[in-house]
């Protein structure tokens, strides 16, 4: 059964090839059905494999001989396969959501959009299950290339192409930095598989500048994808302008895959005695994570363009993921996994609801839409529930995840509560303004991105599009289930224990050792965690209420920060270069 | 002797890369980029990688310049009309 693992990449690729090859003769409905079918089949396959436990597949049948192989290994451990399954489910949801979404497909290419989404799926699944550093780079680039094209999909408008360009430049540069790092590792270890590289590093531990440089460079690419400060600038530009269904994928899984890549490489390659000391990694993730969370939250609160607001909330939650990773314990990692699952559901649902707004009113601007959503009760409820999910109201998966991730340090809950409250509060504020017509229409004078977007859909819909709303509802239900099903949390706990086991990973991959996952305490709700979740939800409500009554100081304090988000590709590249320097400084920081 | 060739080829590549960045006009930069591609092909060959050299030649000698120049042409045409 393990040998079917590569099919999670091959099936979507085949579907995409079919859609392009036969796209000219294919009616739109057939093309969209084929897309959904391929995505759903892949999701099914991933789930079946996931149920069986860890799958290791040497592509081409190049099984290792004395621990050495010339082939590429795909490792579907529970975290990797879980992400592949999440990706596939979300892709299926997105394809259903965007049924007849765009007004006209490119002439003669009815299948182009579903084909691109399937390629995106293949890239993400491949990245999630690969156990080889160079192969990870290849799928990283596949994700990137499709991401740029999907972001710029609406070429008739000015903003999408600009956002896609920023996305393209920064991500490609990050990818090349990663590849340089892979080259350094290859020079030192003579291997490319993650498990093999890790073993070689440990065989003769030499914690020198080469290892540090490789770590920093490899991480640069993944952190660019994960939009960690100061690599995050491209994200709001791309997410604000990409078609809404694409945003669901970008924010829901692609960014998280960047975090996954960083964590995967850290645990499999650098966590041993020959890698980078744990306290250095901890410092790196902690500083970067806190900075990302705070910058994202501050920027999120200031937005009136709803998609951009959601994009910045993704940045800030990514920061929290990184903070969760910093501890490096199985428990905190299982918290991050649950958090990612819950966040994917909540964020995708919020984007989906925003898409309904855009479909109806041709705008995603909080000020313009003031009170115009009064007749869309259902969407308003979805928005509010999504906001509470972001804020971490128990029993959403986000709340359980945060509770598990924040427990390893006394002051971290402050950051978690604050960031959750601000990002959730911003969405609640939008809900109150748009769907309740509360307060007065807000006005600002700062230079900023307004939300006067062109509608993306066929024609202004007079009846609420049922499939779109159903998808949003289902996604929220999923986010709720993550925090409400004890069996899932147990499984995630086991997955995280295997994920953080540096030597165990190499043993599974190279020695074919398939022991049961090491037993550990089952992670579940604690009174503190639930209490903090309730607290941040209450704070979010309070913040939103204050904002609606204009009882908060104006956003002048944030002007310098906002000016840094200049939309200028050159600036973003400058920050990327500075970020490489920052990462090296954080890793090499003299302790004590 | 082999090392001398490697050094020469890599020096050529470094010089071409620098020149490609410093030539700010995209059409003229395309010429330098094409020379960078040729230089890389030589460097790959002296590093005993003719396979990579061949693909660099295929991409760098005609394909990339053609794409860049067509882009420049389209972009200039658009600008010219904008001014009218």
């Amino acid at each position, binding site marked *: 059964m393990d040998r079917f693992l590569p099919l999670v990449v091959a099936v979507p690729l085949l579907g995409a090839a079919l859609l392009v090859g036969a796209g000219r003769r294919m009616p739109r409905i057939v093309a969209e059905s084929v897309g959904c079918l391929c995505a759903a089949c892949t999701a099914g396959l991933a789930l079946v494999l996931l149920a069986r436990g860890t799958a290791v597949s040497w592509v081409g049948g190049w099984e290792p001989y004395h621990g050495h192989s010339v082939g590429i290994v795909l490792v579907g451990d529970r975290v990797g396969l879980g992400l592949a399954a999440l990706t596939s489910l979300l892709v299926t949801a997105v394809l259903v959501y965007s049924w007849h979404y765009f007004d006209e497909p490119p002439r003669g290419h009815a299948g182009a959009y579903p084909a691109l989404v399937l390629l995106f799926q293949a890239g993400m699944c491949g990245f999630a299950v690969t156990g080889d550093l160079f192969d990870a780079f290849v799928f990283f680039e596949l994700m990137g290339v499709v991401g740029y094209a999907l972001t710029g999909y609406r070429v008739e408008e000015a903003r999408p192409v600009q956002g896609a360009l920023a996305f393209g430049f920064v991500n490609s540069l990050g990818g090349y930095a990663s590849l340089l790092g892979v080259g350094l590792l290859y020079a030192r270890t003579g291997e490319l598989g993650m498990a093999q590289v890790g073993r070689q590093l440990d065989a003769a531990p030499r914690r020198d500048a080469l290892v540090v440089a490789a770590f920093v460079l490899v991480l640069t690419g993944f952190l660019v994808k994960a939009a960690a400060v100061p690599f995050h600038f491209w994200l709001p530009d791309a997410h604000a302008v990409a078609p809404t269904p694409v945003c669901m994928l970008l924010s829901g899984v692609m960014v998280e895959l960047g975090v996954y890549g960083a964590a995967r490489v850290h645990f499999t390659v650098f966590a041993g005695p020959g890698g980078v000391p744990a306290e250095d990694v901890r410092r790196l993730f902690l500083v970067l994570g806190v900075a990302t969370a705070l910058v994202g939250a501050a920027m999120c609160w200031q937005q009136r363009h709803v998609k951009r607001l959601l994009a910045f909330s993704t940045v800030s939650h990514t920061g929290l993921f990184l903070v969760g990773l910093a501890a490096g314990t199985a428990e905190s990692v299982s918290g991050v996994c649950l958090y990612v699952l819950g966040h994917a559901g909540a964020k995708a649902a919020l984007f989906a609801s925003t898409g309904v707004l855009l479909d109806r009113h041709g705008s995603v601007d909080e000020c313009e839409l003031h009170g115009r959503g009064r007749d869309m009760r259902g969407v308003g409820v979805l928005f509010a529930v999504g906001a509470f999910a972001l804020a971490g109201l128990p029993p959403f998966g986000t709340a359980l995840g945060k509770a598990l991730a924040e427990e390893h340090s006394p002051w971290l809950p402050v950051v978690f509560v604050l960031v959750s409250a601000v990002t959730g509060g911003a969405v609640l504020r939008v809900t109150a303004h748009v769907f309740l017509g509360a307060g007065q229409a807000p006005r600002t004078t700062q230079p900023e991105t307004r939300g006067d977007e062109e509608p993306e859909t066929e024609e202004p819909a007079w009846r609420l599009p049922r499939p779109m709303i159903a998808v949003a509802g289902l996604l929220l239900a999923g986010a709720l289930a993550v925090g409400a099903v004890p069996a899932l949390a147990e499984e995630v706990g086991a997955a995280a224990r295997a994920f953080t086991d540096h030597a165990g990973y190499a043993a599974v991959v190279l020695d074919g050792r398939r022991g049961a996952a090491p037993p550990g305490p089952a992670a579940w709700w604690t009174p503190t965690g639930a209490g903090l979740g309730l607290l941040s939800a209450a704070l979010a409500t309070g913040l939103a209420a204050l904002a609606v009554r204009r009882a908060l100081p104006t956003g002048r304090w944030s002007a310098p920060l906002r000016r840094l988000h200049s939309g200028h590709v050159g600036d973003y590249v400058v920050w990327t270069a500075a970020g490489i320097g920052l990462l090296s400084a954080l890793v090499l920081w003299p302790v004590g | *002797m*082999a090392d*001398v*060739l490697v050094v*020469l*080829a890599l020096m*050529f590549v470094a*010089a*071409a890369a620098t*020149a*490609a960045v*410093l*030539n700010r006009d995209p*059409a*003229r930069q*395309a*010429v*330098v980029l*094409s*020379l960078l591609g*040729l*230089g890389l*092909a*030589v460097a790959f*060959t*002296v590093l*005993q990688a*003719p396979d990579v*050299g*061949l693909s660099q*030649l*295929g991409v760098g*000698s*005609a394909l990339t*310049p*053609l794409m860049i*120049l*067509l882009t*420049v*042409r389209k972009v200039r045409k658009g600008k010219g009309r904008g001014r009218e």
Partner: protein
Amino acid sequence: MNPWLGGAALLLVGGLGPSLWAAASGGAGRRVVAQNMATLLLCLVFLLLAQGYGRTAYVDLALVVAVLGPAGTLVFARLLLDRDSGDPPGARWLTPVVAVATPATVIPLCIVTGPGRATVKLVVIGLLLLAGGVATTRAVRRG
């Protein structure tokens, strides 16, 4: 010390180096001429390297340059050169250089290789190079 590799190094320094300089400065015409010169010399460099390393397989590189090099120059000639800006500087040297350098490289190589398929390949490359050189010179000077 291998004279073939020495020749390649010489061509690299004395031929491709100045071409880079010319291609990176000055007007469009001068740059295209330099690019053309560089591709022609590059083909010879590959032939010399193949001989110097004793690897006939490397001759394929020269074969590909012999057709793609002129194609690249024609791209520049078509899309970069101004039609009425006259003869670019240095263009009149193109044909003589090709006419002298190609036989000067190919003929000794043929002699060393001896009759056989490899020699036929060398002759084909030489002919393609000459034809390409003449055609690109025409294209560059058509103004």
